[in-house]
């Protein structure tokens, strides 16, 4: 089944749901994901690693060009690598470094990073209920949110598979770091990485995730709405704002019950 490669967390949730229905006469416990765990399920983590691998490969290509861009801009190579290690938010890093490269100041670079990252705010709010433990622990676990992992770890009931999320993010993190190091240390040798077509990588990455999201048929209307909002705002707002504003299209989900949208 093709969907299992794309939404392993959903398939696992479906299987657990089946088990629950089978055992519900004897088992009065709520389904596993009703009560978030604090331990990591190793098998699910490995499933996440495998599902994240192709995204890690794509991230690697992107981070090579990020590393090269940062060093071209005047960052010491070690600074470019540390940035990927502690910021780990690809499009925000590109935005901030590009602004500095174009002669922009510290303030505008940081504001751009905030705006580009602002989509992680609704993503974190969605993830929150699926995390357990104290606030510090939850805050740290929330750092594992990156686009592909978040989208793949989503279950049909609106909860998230955190072990899967960690696995999928872990492999992308390693790839992101290695790619940045390669790009930074090879310095100007790569030249303008746009000639390799790497600027097409990110949008393609998102398009593929979107295509798989929309396979079910539901969500097409809001996706179109989000796209139109973003398109309308591109010329009049700073980078990042169109994506955040587009998330408002999802508010149409208020009209529905929690079990309806997918």
């Amino acid at each position: 089944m093709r969907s299992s490669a794309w939404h392993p967390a959903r398939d696992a949730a479906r299987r657990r749901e089946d088990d629950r229905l089978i055992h519900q006469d004897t088992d009065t416990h709520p389904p596993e994901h009703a009560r978030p765990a604090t331990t990591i399920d190793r098998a699910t983590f490995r499933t996440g690693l495998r599902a994240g691998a192709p995204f890690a490969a794509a991230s690697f290509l992107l981070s090579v060009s990020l590393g090269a861009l940062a060093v071209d801009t005047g960052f010491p190579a070690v600074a470019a690598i540390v940035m990927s290690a502690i910021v780990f938010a690809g499009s925000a890093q590109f935005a901030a470094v590009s602004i500095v490269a174009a002669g922009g100041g510290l303030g505008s670079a940081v504001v751009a990073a905030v705006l580009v990252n602002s989509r992680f705010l609704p993503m974190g709010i969605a993830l929150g209920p699926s995390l357990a433990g104290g606030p510090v622990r939850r805050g740290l676990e929330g750092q594992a949110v990156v686009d592909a992992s978040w989208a793949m770890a989503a279950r049909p009931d609106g909860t998230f598979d955190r072990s899967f999320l960690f696995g999928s993010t872990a492999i992308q993190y390693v790839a992101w770091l290695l790619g940045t190091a390669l790009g930074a240390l090879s310095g100007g040798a790569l030249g303008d990485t746009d000639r390799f077509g790497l600027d097409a990588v990110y949008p393609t990455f998102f398009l593929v995730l979107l295509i798989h999201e929309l396979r079910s048929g539901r969500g097409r209307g809001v996706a179109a709405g989000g796209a139109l909002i973003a398109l309308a705002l591109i010329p009049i707002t700073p980078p990042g704002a169109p994506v955040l504003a587009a998330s408002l299209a999802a508010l149409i989900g208020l009209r529905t019950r929690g079990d309806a949208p997918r």
Partner: protein
Amino acid sequence: MSVDPWLLIVLCAVVTAAIKGVGPVALGGRALPDRATGVIALLAPTLLAALVVTGVAGQDGHLGVGVEAVGVAAGGVVALRGSSILVCVVVAAAVTAALRAVT
């Protein structure tokens, strides 16, 4: 470069961590109401669609489409035919690079 790279890195790390952490810190372990869950389930397609549009049609704050749009479209066609993400991304980059070389 007029900016201290280390200061930029630390500030970016702090704001990113704060943005990613707010939801989990505020909402840990607490089930959201059904209506909120309905919104969340629609967030992924909405945000992804917006990211595709801004990635393809946003050129430094202006509307515009470059050759990479053709590459992305090629990647999308390959995705619809069931290829893995890596194949899609390589096709998109290769088409973009080829077009850029001839234009």
